[in-house]
């Protein structure tokens, strides 16, 4: 109205910008070797577990010699980690979405018991029992997902609860009795499909090991090459930002939990082949072991960071340590002790990598 233009524009404070220093970031560009390493690891979080796995294999090969570093023993390790490996794949999906699933092994054992009961006790054709187990796994995961998204419960509490629920159902259905290996052989050998072995020289590769690798490859593809996978990372990274950016985060999370449940159903089928019998008490520590593999694999517990292949390497690292220490004649309690340190060191490294400065 009455003010002149100088007043309107306010005081000029930007004309001096023309002469300002044009270099945007003028840090002293001297990266120490440690900082360079930090950057490399930040870009490739799977590098740590790969290095650890190779180093551990070499060291145990030197210490325990032939007995450890033989085709037979190395493939045996793969057999030993195959079930926890598949569970770790499922766990990775959940952890990448910034959740945690304490019920993966409980879902698996419950589904194995259901499949066994159907085929061995009730005479249902084995392929149908397997389908029921897969669908049941997906349904159990869906239940977790609905509780996390619709009832808005923290994933830790939700799956702590469903762990107990699934475990109790499993004891009830099985009557706390194992289904004997010979009974499965008799009425439903198809349930043991993944126990089949391919022998090449001393190497014994079970179908279960091949299945584990296929599960990882398939999930790696989904996470890295599809929009769905990018959304898992986006939701795990920053859920609110993802929502505003146009991702239906609840629907996304439900699909993640359901898929993880389906993978647990796959693990159930594989576990019958691996163990032979179906024991309701088996894999009681599987939930935590799967988290161990994921953490050692360099996948951040805070979500959104890490590669699913890391979980495969994490599972193998645990297997290599256990086998190596056993063959080197170390008491079991020290194996457990070593795994404990591995977890702590892995998380410490993750924290350090996250502090990367640009």
């Amino acid at each position, binding site marked *: *109205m009455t*003010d002149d233009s100088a*007043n*309107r*524009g*306010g005081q000029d*404070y*930007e004309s001096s*910008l023309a002469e*300002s220093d044009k270099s*945007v*970031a003028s840090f002293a560009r001297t990266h120490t070797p440690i900082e360079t390493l930090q950057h490399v690891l930040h870009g490739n979080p799977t590098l740590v577990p790969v290095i650890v796995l190779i180093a551990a294999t070499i060291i145990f090969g030197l210490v325990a010699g032939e007995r450890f570093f033989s085709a037979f023993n190395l493939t045996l390790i793969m057999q030993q980690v195959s079930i926890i490996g598949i569970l770790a794949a499922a766990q990775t999906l959940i952890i990448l979405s910034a959740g945690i699933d304490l019920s993966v092994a409980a879902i698996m054992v419950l589904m194995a018991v259901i499949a066994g009961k159907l085929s061995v006790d009730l005479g249902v054709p084995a392929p149908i029992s397997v389908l029921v187990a897969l669908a049941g796994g997906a349904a159990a995961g869906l239940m977790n997902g609905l509780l996390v998204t619709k009832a808005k419960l923290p994933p830790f509490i939700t799956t702590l609860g469903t762990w107990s629920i699934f475990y109790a159902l499993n004891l009830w259905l099985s009557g706390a009795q194992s289904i004997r290996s010979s009974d499965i052989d008799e009425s439903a050998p198809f349930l043991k499909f993944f126990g089949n072995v391919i022998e090449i020289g001393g190497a014994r590769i079970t179908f279960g090991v091949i299945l584990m690798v296929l599960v990882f490859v398939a999930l790696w*593809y989904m996470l890295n*090459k*599809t*929009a*769905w996978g*990018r*959304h898992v*990372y*986006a939701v795990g*990274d*920053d859920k*609110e*930002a*993802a*929502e*505003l*950016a*146009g*991702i*239906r985060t609840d629907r996304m999370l439900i699909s993640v939990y359901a898929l993880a449940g389906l993978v647990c159903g796959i693990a159930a089928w594989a576990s019958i082949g691996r163990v032979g019998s179906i024991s309701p008490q088996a894999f009681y520590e599987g939930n935590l072991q799967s988290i161990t593999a994921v953490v050692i694999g360099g996948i951040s517990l805070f979500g*959104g*960071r890490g590669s699913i292949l890391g979980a495969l390497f994490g599972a193998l690292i645990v297997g290599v340590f256990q086998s190596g220490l056993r063959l080197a004649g170390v008491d079991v309690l020290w194996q457990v002790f070593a795994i404990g340190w591995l977890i702590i060191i892995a998380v410490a490294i993750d924290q350090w990598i996250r502090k990367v400065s*640009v």
Partner: protein
Amino acid sequence: MTQEPVLTARGLVKRYGRVTALDNCDFDLYPGEVLAVIGDNGAGKSSLIKAISGAVQIDAGEIRLEGKPISFRSPLEARDAGIETVYQTLALSPALSIVDNMFVGREIVKDGVLGRTFRMLDHKRMEAMAREKLSELGLMTIQNINQPVETLSGGQRQGVAVARAAAFGSKVVIMDEPTAALGVKESRRVLELIKGLKERGMPIVLISHNMPHVFEVADRIHVHRLGKRLCVIDPKSHSMNDAVAFMTGAKEPGEAEAA
């Protein structure tokens, strides 16, 4: 103005419990203009913007986009209708790359079986499009389009968020406090971005507390007070002081300003 507005709102009401955030609020945005929305804290600016961008649902009133009544149930629906919002928080995922962030929620899949059955993303095409958009906005100082957003500076991040809105917003771009967290130099960059978008004919709604920035880029200024539009002023005939006076209630708008 003889032109038809792109976006209009009439009689918007939004209540949160006993608080009335929007009280019979009107709003008009004309083609090709930069409309600044200013108002004191708690005046209801955010509610107005959220109502338009679909983030909240209004209790009463009507919003029209190009003459057609609209009611968005989510930001996604607003986006699909051509209204893009650059949020104050930017809504970027730090660990994802620039390309991933720009295409979140509307990724391009490959042609043929790979895309249809295996849902494989067409990274090459998305990269090319992202590069094109970023250079259009003069943001190609970013060397690597696949670097994670967390490695960018604040101004560069803002640039990515603006480029995303510009790339997909076909009708309206809303910017919420785009310069609030930025330094002098970076703010300048964002203001240039806004002018660049305007030159390409995009109508822009700019929410800001920064009077110099508002007066520099805005064609009209919507002054929000107590949940409604108090007046619309012309930055060429009013001073920043007037704007602040209206905004805070120190002065009542006269006949000329009354909306």
